[in-house]
């Protein structure tokens, strides 16, 4: 009984990983002009205007690289594309955690699918 239960759980887990779970699913695919498969990310400027200064995220304003959408460099420039996940997790999530810790309304702190959805703004 225990063995069969474990085998069933193992097969179900493998099927979930191989085919994805039911419902909305995030998938890695080449996006934003890059060739490396990455997850979609959703972002709404309207949710951030009031609480985050533009330059917090838009370093290109200070670097005088105006004109290109953020993701163009972050998925095509070999110097930073490998760090995409780490950089954006740090940038977005650390700010959300600080806001949550301060008792303020915040974006998602951990739930993956809350951010990794197709973006309505692009």
């Amino acid at each position, binding site marked *: 009984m*225990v*063995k069969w239960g*474990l085998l069933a*759980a*193992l097969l*179900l*887990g493998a099927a*979930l*990983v191989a085919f*994805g*779970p*039911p*419902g*909305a*699913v*995030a*998938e*890695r695919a080449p996006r934003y002009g890059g060739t490396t498969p990455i*997850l979609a990310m959703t972002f709404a400027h309207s949710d951030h205007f009031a609480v985050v200064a533009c330059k917090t995220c838009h370093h290109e304003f200070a670097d005088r690289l105006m004109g290109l959408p953020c993701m163009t460099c972050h998925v095509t420039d070999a110097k930073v594309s490998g760090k995409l996940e780490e950089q954006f997790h740090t940038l977005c999530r650390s700010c959300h*955690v600080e806001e*949550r*810790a301060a*008792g303020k309304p915040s974006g*998602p*702190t*951990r*739930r*993956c*699918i*809350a951010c*990794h959805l197709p973006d309505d703004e692009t």
Partner: protein
Amino acid sequence: MPAGLVGFVLATGFLVRGRVGGGWYWDAGNALGFVALAGLLGQMIALPGPRELRRHEWLGYAVLGLAIGHAFWFLLGDGAAWVYLVPGAPLYMWLGLGGLLGLAALTVLARMPERLRVHRRYRTFRRVHRWLGVAVVIAAALHVLLSGFYLPTWPQSALLAGAVLAACFGRSMLRRLPAVPVPSLGSYLVVAVVAVGVFTLARNLPPW
């Protein structure tokens, strides 16, 4: 013992940013994982006598069930979590998966008659069972520590790491202390339900 151990493991996460949660669903799933980790530590600390082996076995099934529940909770309820179990996933996820598979092997290979098929001698079985247990606990602890969400500061990590090291390698010291009884399955499950509820509520109720 189950309440104390589960309380200790959860308390390490409440020392700093204890009110910061990842949402009801996320925190409930991770509470299952923390309770499973506490159960694993309990299994390592307790010294089951001949009459307590049955309790040790049933507690093992409960810990494995909670660990499986923790993994499936996210696979079924978060459509992006499965991406973290395919090539390119961070190390802490591989450690979590490895710990879970190790725990399944630990459980199955300790049952009769499987145990006799693998180990003819009881002493060999005990040694392998113990060291596989150590590997599983360390993998599970690193899964928690490297993910860095609930234990964001080094003192919290040090507390959990100390508990893990004491449970895994402090057996000679523990032998001098009064024998730690193996908790019953019922008491562990009651503590688990309460702990998951408290953990989830504390991190998600609005500030008072």
